[in-house]
């Protein structure tokens, strides 16, 4: 069996950043396995700009952002295999992979970094009633068809869901000459970034209808119209509010789901909220030596944070390979809990003895909060209380924990992040 110190599953932004940081941390033997025919992942089809404002202090397109990392992978001569599908990972870190050229083979790794990304929630999972004709796409599939394959799905578009890809595609389809009639969003708030609503809808006069959903799809062979209706606060359509839109395309942007089939095969403990693995402060999963980062761990809205998180995962995986397991049973491990409006945290535990001086804890809120406070409690003691003008489910939040504030509190059991009105 071939062996590598670190095998990275996925050559998108997370996998690339993890690889580069693992190399910088001293690991020579690294292999990236990528299922597509080039590195870069989903960034390759994101040809709009706005990437890299945090990381590079400039506005790059998706492929440009990806290339900043691909360049480093090439310079560092990090090995990668394209067109390669990982079929299985065991808890003993045996990775089974397959490709046209290399056939079916197994690799023994000392550490594995999961960076498989996420997928879009399909129509089927939304239970939208009506016919099942051609012309219904998830926004990302349409993005690939337009930006990579060079084909237009249609000319008259309705979009359900206001996730970022849907918003980006509203603008993209408009620029390609299509008419985007409306974006309907089930929730009373958008699932996307504020800046995308402004730049992709408002600037083009595309209406966004909050608390609306599609209640019927017409067209036996090809979609010909949809009906949208307002929903009440339980999400049920309100009779009498129906509006019919003729269209030849329906795009869906109704949420992203981390792609964790392999994580499940490896027996990794998963979070029911994020649909990604539960991780420690080192981004290690419940299986020794398997780390996770990027959208497979939890869905991010900015690639900059993916890169940052993945670099940490690469660094920690390198440390794991070089130093072996350092955790001791006597270490002080504390659970991080999300309550009162905060839905989850990544990581979900912290080992105070092993943590870096600073630990970024990322989380999302479950509803829109205005002029509220993000608070951090060490058991009952509040140590952080910061006012935020607006908190929304579409925008990931973070707090930074300082090791020096946690050390010496031997009875500390739980760190809680909550949203407070005052």
């Amino acid at each position, binding site marked *: 069996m071939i062996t590598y110190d670190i095998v990275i599953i996925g050559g998108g932004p997370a996998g690339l950043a993890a690889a580069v940081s693992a190399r910088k941390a001293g690991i020579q033997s690294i292999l990236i396995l990528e299922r597509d025919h080039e590195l870069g992942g989903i960034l390759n089809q994101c040809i709009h700009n706005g990437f890299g404002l945090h990381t590079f202090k400039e506005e790059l397109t998706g492929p440009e952002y990806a290339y900043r990392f691909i360049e480093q992978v090439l310079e560092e001569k990090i090995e990668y295999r394209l067109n390669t599908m990982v079929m299985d990972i065991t808890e003993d870190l045996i990775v089974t992979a397959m490709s046209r050229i290399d056939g*079916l083979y197994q690799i023994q790794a000392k550490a594995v970094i999961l960076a498989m990304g996420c997928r879009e929630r*399909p129509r089927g999972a939304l239970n939208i009633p009506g016919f099942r004709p051609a012309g219904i796409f998830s926004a990302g*599939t349409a993005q690939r068809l337009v930006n990579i394959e060079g084909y237009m799905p249609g000319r008259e578009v309705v979009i359900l869901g206001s996730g970022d890809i849907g918003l980006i595609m509203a603008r993209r389809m408009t620029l390609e000459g299509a008419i985007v009639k409306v974006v309907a969003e089930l929730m009373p708030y958008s699932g996307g970034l504020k800046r995308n609503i402004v730049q992709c809808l408002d600037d083009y006069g595309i209406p966004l209808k909050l608390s609306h959903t599609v209640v019927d799809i017409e067209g036996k062979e090809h979609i010909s119209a949809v009906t949208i209706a307002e929903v009440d606060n339980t999400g049920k359509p309100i009779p009498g509010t129906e509006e019919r839109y003729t269209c030849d395309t329906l795009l869906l942007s109704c949420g992203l789901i981390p792609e964790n089939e392999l994580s499940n095969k490896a027996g990794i403990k998963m979070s029911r909220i994020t649909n990604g693995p539960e991780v420690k402060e080192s981004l290690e999963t419940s299986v020794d030596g398997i780390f996770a980062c990027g959208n497979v761990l939890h869905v991010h809205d900015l690639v900059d944070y993916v890169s940052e998180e993945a670099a940490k995962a690469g660094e920690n995986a390198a440390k794991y390979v070089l130093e072996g397991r350092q955790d001791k049973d006597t270490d002080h491990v504390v659970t991080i809990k999300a309550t009162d409006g905060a839905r989850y945290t990544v990581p979900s535990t912290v080992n105070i003895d092993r943590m870096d001086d600073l630990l970024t804890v990322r989380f999302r809120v479950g509803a829109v909060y205005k002029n509220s406070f993000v608070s951090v409690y060490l058991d009952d003691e509040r140590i952080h209380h910061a006012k935020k003008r607006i908190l929304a489910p579409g925008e990931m939040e973070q707090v930074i924990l300082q090791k020096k504030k946690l050390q010496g509190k031997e009875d500390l059991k739980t760190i809680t992040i909550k949203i407070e009105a005052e």
Partner: protein
Amino acid sequence: MYDIIIIGAGVTGSSVARELSRYNANICVLEKGEDVCTGTSKANSAIVHAGFDAAEGSMMAKMNVRGNEMMTQLAEDLDIPFKRNGAMVVCIHKEALDGLKTLYDRGIANGVKELRILNREEALEMEPNLSENVQGALYAPTSGIICPFILNIAMAENAAENGVEFRFNTQVEDIKADADGIWHLRTNNGEYTAKYVINAAGVHADIIHNMVSENKIHITPRRGDYCLLDKEVGGHVKHTIFPQPTNLGKGVLVSPTVHGNLIVGPTAVDIEDKEGNNTTAAGINDLIAKAGAHVRDLPLRKVITSFAGLRAHEAHHEFIIKEVEDAPHFIDCAGIESPGLTSAPAIGEYVGQMMKEKMELTEKENWISKRKGILNPQELSFEDRAELIKEKPAYGNIICRCESISEGEILDAIHRPLGARSLDGVKRRTRAGMGRCQAGFCSPRVMEILNRELGIPMEEITKSGGRSNIVLERTKGKNGGEA
């Protein structure tokens, strides 16, 4: 001129075609869809029923029990995924317990083997996720689950290999007999003539029948909504779980599928539109409420798709399989609603025998009885799979991530007899696009393969024939901006 024309390439028409392909005769199947298995046959519960439902002595009962019997051998001969997982009819009201006995007696009279009545404890032991309210159950071990697409496709492929011609996108518009009793079928693709016509037109069988007979029949499309759940929860029940039947049918079942998903459905709503296979919010809500009554903790968050199918319901709730009285040499296979899928092999056998006698057909010497399905690399050992990829690298290229379907399988689906020409055609043959992402990732790639292998321009590739084109045009004009 053909000896026999069969109208419809659904599971009934394909089964009849396969049975008739044993004989020396010129046979043609006319199908209005772009592929086999595009109507009722593609959207149903995929259950091989035991046969205790249909009235004693009915054609339905006979065909059901015989079809069930034939399925093991047929599945082996034609390489069809099939498993006898057993069914349970669950009683949740004490006062309705007698109903189980009625069903049991009917089953015995119909010739169903191994039926047993279970008490509450036995039922819960066999199926721990049954409702707390379970009072008892009828257990039918001979009930099974099958891939409805492959059953249909395999019979059609085998018929084609034995010389039966198939004409797709060919809709019969009118039928008249000439003075010699020869049938002239007018279609959108020209005229066809035949000595015998077999009507296997599903929900449209009444329209076809009424073209030749004064004794009109009426087929009501009875719509049934279904939800299909992720393979992650496919083991929620092991058996096919039915409620006790009502006059609208067998009710909402919960069952594993032969591919490992969980299926919930169908509802039953009589409609007029013969192509009205749209789901409705009311239907899905009804479904969820009904299924929950017999099986607890249904993991409905794991729905990956919902769909609706149309049963071809005839007013007498009986299969009509006979020569039409006032139209000699015209044979109906009409009113083939549930258990039509189960009955298909038996209907084929029955009609085959009928035609053999009527036309004094002689058997071919070189009839091919077996068909090899599309190779499933997931069933191979690691070494065999590695060897396969070495020989045929396309099997190493995964196209559909969710179901792990390789390019090799898709190429096979396209290039075998009656090969796939659309995304749905590929999907029904290989399962590419049937998984949890519902073709989000693989559809552009399957389109590329169809384009490359069949030379169909990208703009003309369809989801399922007709006007179901996936993309409209190039983004930057005809040549995509290239000079």
